[in-house]
């Protein structure tokens, strides 16, 4: 690989754009989420600040910036501050191999999806560190739940993606998009419905969202692993959660929904439309389904999703061998 100034400039611009995307996404999604929650629960949602309450998220983030950062007694000082940083910054890397448009990939790498899966592990680690370093029983319980949940749901998630990788024969996200067609019936969603379903369930669990938000179940654990975080510490966890949601939505769009390919004209708009549809779906089920119990959560994974994804992988491999 030739090292050149242009290459570094490209990566730098990409990282800055990704930061802008992450922050903008968090502000928009907070508003959308609260309005959608209001609509589903038959209440108005935010409506005081700005027209239709649109400035509510900005005011909230100002409040977070101004809040005092509070460190609990006997907390592990270094790890307490390392955790939110470790939650936020690896997510920047995760967006690098995502093909937003035909020529709009920050870093074209042959092992794109492996990079995403590798650095996604830091999210779990940061949750664990945050919960442990807070010296808070709710924090530790939340962290313990976070790890057993993430470790469990990572397996069907990877196996579901692996079925698509088998089909496309590549780990490069752009090539996976290229293997699909422009029309909805040419997308992987049609030939891999089971993998799509498994991925959809696992992504909700991996991003710790309701109905699988047990690491931060507020009725039992106050706020789980980030109970003791205030101000920017909490804001970084919060940003990381929304960025992770956005990431899994983009990966979903790339793997199952044809990425930047769409009817009439291919382009980055299709990626964004599809990713935000998945995002809206995540928000929608959060306010529709009640939270599962922890044993139910683990049973769904180990007794249903894992055997189903293995079966799916097996059938995919056999069909590929027979056909091609």
């Amino acid at each position, binding site marked *: 690989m030739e*090292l050149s100034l242009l290459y570094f400039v490209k990566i730098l611009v990409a990282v800055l754009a990704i930061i802008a995307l992450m922050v903008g996404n968090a502000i928009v999604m907070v508003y959308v989420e609260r309005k959608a929650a209001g609509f589903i629960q038959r209440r108005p949602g935010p409506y005081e600040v700005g027209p239709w309450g649109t400035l509510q998220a900005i005011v909230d983030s100002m409040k977070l910036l101004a809040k005092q950062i509070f460190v609990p007694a*006997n*907390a*592990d000082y*270094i*790890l307490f501050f*390392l955790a939110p940083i470790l939650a936020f910054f690896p997510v920047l890397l995760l967006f690098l191999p995502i093909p937003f448009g035909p020529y709009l990939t920050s870093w074209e*790498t*042959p*092992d794109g999806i*492996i*990079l995403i*899966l*590798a*650095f*996604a*592990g*830091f999210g*779990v*680690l940061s949750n*664990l*560190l945050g919960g*442990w*370093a807070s*010296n808070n029983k709710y924090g*530790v319980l939340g*962290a*313990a739940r976070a*790890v*057993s949940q*993430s*470790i469990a749901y*990572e397996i069907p998630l990877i196996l579901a993606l692996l079925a698509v990788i088998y089909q496309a024969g590549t*780990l490069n996200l752009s090539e996976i998009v290229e293997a699909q067609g422009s029309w909805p019936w040419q997308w992987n969603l049609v030939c891999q419905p089971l993998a799509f379903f498994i991925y959809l369930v696992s992504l909700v669990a991996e991003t710790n969202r309701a109905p699988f938000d047990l690491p931060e179940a507020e009725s039992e654990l106050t706020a789980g692993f980030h109970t003791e975080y205030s101000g920017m510490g909490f804001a970084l966890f919060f940003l990381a959660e929304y960025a992770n949601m956005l990431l899994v939505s983009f990966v979903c769009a790339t793997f199952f929904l044809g990425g930047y390919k769409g009817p009439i004209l291919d382009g980055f708009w299709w990626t964004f439309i599809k990713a935000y549809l998945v995002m809206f779906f995540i928000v929608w089920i959060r306010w529709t389904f009640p939270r599962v119990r922890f044993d139910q959560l683990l049973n769904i994974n180990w007794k249903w999703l894992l055997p189903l994804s293995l079966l799916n992988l097996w059938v995919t491999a056999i069909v590929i061998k027979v056909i091609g």
Partner: protein
Amino acid sequence: MEQHVNPIIDAVLGYIAGFIQYLAGLLGPYLPEAHWAAYLAFALYVTAIILGGLLAILARNLVRAMMGLVLTFLGVAGMYLLLASPFLAFMQLLIYVGAICVLVFFAIMLTHNSSEGEESKLPPLSALGYGLLSLIAPLAVAGPLIILHGSKLKSKVPVDTPTGDLGKGLLTEYVLPFELISIVLLVAMAGAVFLAFRGFAPLKGDKE
């Protein structure tokens, strides 16, 4: 135009530049030719590995020790990147940071959650001695191999291997070592179950 340059800073920078040039001249004939950025990255990764290792050994707190281990794994992943094998680097992170470290952490958390762990005391000198003795084993195995085969490298610059070839190699030419490694893992797992399994009958101390 008059430039306000602090003469002391100027002198120090000049001295450092001269020292680096001197070092480069001294080591130059022995070092492979590579981009300066590669050397910078190498220095960074070596520092991460050594600092992480020291932290892992010397920290009096298990969780901090584990963060040192994570730092070491990051450095090793960087080394794989320098060796032109990004797949291996990402796998290193996926398996060691994403799975092994998280599980180790989980085990630490289940045992106790005070920041002053049971490992707070320094081990006795004899234990340190045994630890140093155990260094001999990898040296005894790796040393002769390095001496015998170290100089037979065909190219000085690492070759980029496509991931597909890697997979084919694992399933054809190197299938036996690959399976043997799986057996090691299986034995470790069976051993752990054997050590931890208490039988189906409840023990005397258990309730119910």
